[in-house]
């Protein structure tokens, strides 16, 4: 088990830290940073991950809160749970195609909106743009947020609300002084995960646009399979290493936040 995980990991770490002649070097990192294309890819990836994760986090929490207050164990819970699981973890490619069917050039929604005089594509919208891909990302970010935040929301005891209300707090006061501070660490932690998720996701972008999109995973694909330049292999591995570092930082941040989150939610 460890072997199958270890081989690719070793190749990436080793490849990113050595030259063609197998000498130890940090040059690869410097080269990817000096390359305009890769810098742009990183910038795009970061921007994409930030806005999709924040949007996903807010709407996900909102929706999760609405579902949690419904009858526990009911149909709504079940459907939300299973649906979220499907969309968040297993749906990359099919999701992208549904999206194309809806908002692509000849998509159903696009055509429908044209009937009402709104031409999306006339205003520069395409599903292969950053906005388009990001919008599709939101389709798995929101469900993931629901999965992540639901336990925290369920941990909010109804006693706390009753206590606050009995002590004269308003509903808003309860939210402001009790619910939000208790939930904040979980919320931040989940948002970090959403960020990491968007950052490392590739399936959706691959299906929507292909490897030409300027985000880091696509650049890795390109560098390894595109045969554009000599030495691109190494650039691909180095980009991979850099991705691991980014995700690792996010993970560490998550651990810290999670420690705080556990304090109230037991």
């Amino acid at each position, binding site marked *: 088990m460890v072997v199958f995980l270890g081989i*690719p990991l070793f190749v990436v770490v080793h490849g990113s830290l050595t030259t063609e002649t197998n000498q130890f070097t940090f040059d690869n990192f410097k080269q990817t940073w000096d390359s305009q294309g890769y810098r742009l890819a990183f910038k795009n990836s970061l921007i994409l991950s930030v806005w999709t994760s924040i949007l996903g986090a807010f709407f996900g929490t909102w929706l999760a809160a609405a579902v949690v207050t419904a009858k526990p164990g009911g149909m709504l819970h079940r459907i939300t749970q299973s649906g979220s699981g499907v969309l968040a973890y297993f749906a990359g490619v*099919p999701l992208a195609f549904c999206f194309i069917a809806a908002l692509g050039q000849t998509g159903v929604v696009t055509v429908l909106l044209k009937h009402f005089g709104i031409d999306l594509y006339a205003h520069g919208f395409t599903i292969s743009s950053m906005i388009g891909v990001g919008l599709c990302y939101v389709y798995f970010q929101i469900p993931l947020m629901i999965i992540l935040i639901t336990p925290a929301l369920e941990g909010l005891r109804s006693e706390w609300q009753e206590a606050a209300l009995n002590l004269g707090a308003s509903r808003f006061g309860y939210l402001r002084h009790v619910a939000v501070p208790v939930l904040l660490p979980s919320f931040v932690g989940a948002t970090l995960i959403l960020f990491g998720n968007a950052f490392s996701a590739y399936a959706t972008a691959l299906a929507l646009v292909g490897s030409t999109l300027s985000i880091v995973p696509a650049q890795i694909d390109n560098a390894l399979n595109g045969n554009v330049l000599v030495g691109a292999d190494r650039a691909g591995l180095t980009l991979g290493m850099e991705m691991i570092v980014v995700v690792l930082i996010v993970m560490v941040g998550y651990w810290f936040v999670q420690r705080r989150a556990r304090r109230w939610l037991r």
Partner: protein
Amino acid sequence: MTVSGSMGPFGQAELIGEMMEEPPPQSVPRRRGRPRIWRVTIFVLAAIFFFVPLAAAFKYSLQQDNGGYGFANYGTIIHNKDVRAPLVTSLEIAAISGAIVILLMLPTVVWVRLKKPRATTFMEVVTLLPIVIPPVVMAAGLEQFELNAPQWVIQHGFDSPLSGLIPFYVVLAMPFTYRAIDTGVRAIDLHTLVDASRNLGASWASTLARVVLPNVQTAVLGAMFLTVALCLGEVVIATLLLYQTFPVELIVLNHQQQAGASVALSMLTLAFTFLLLFTLSFLAQRRRGSRATRLL
């Protein structure tokens, strides 16, 4: 009792916790009053956001080349040989991975729980690694490895999509499967069951198969379902290593201007995965009802 059971560092734990564990005791039943405006708002928004594309995709998938509506696009799954072959490959991968997961993970979890409780943290870290390493990076490493690998590795490993992908899908599924099975095993009195079985003369293998397995069958089934879902959906590694699996074929179809077919097949995939997880949520509930009697 903790709220989500295993508060693992990543989402999978929560998903599985949700599905596998009993719901937290609700000290006060929530009152259902007048529907609040904020709830209605978000439900309407969510309905638009999530169901419009699905409905649109469904309509799109029904459009035929001749302009009429029908299920022709869904027929490709049977008629088109280029679709059928990758689908069979993917199903094979899913089935074998599911079996391997059980054969591998159940003994591992039991062994860690019984003999090496100290290794629990280590296992949790290892099982989380597949999430820290983005799939595309894993694929990149593999691809480079394949370029320089000795001939016999290529022949026995990478030449067939089955042997090339299954080990890595099993690894990728680890975060799901380890946690699912671990949650299940933690809920039973493993020590007593195993001791009793061993004292009565059962071998380790038969203890696992005939005592432990029936008691955690829901968890094991859950782990299998999640593995199957993952195998049917994974595309990044398969693409980078140039294998023809079902999701890869979906993308190829789309590039060949057969968007209708690829959307239709996407709908089928979504529906199938949803059904898997939906069934799982019912199984988890059934276990709750009968577990007490089964253990006593």
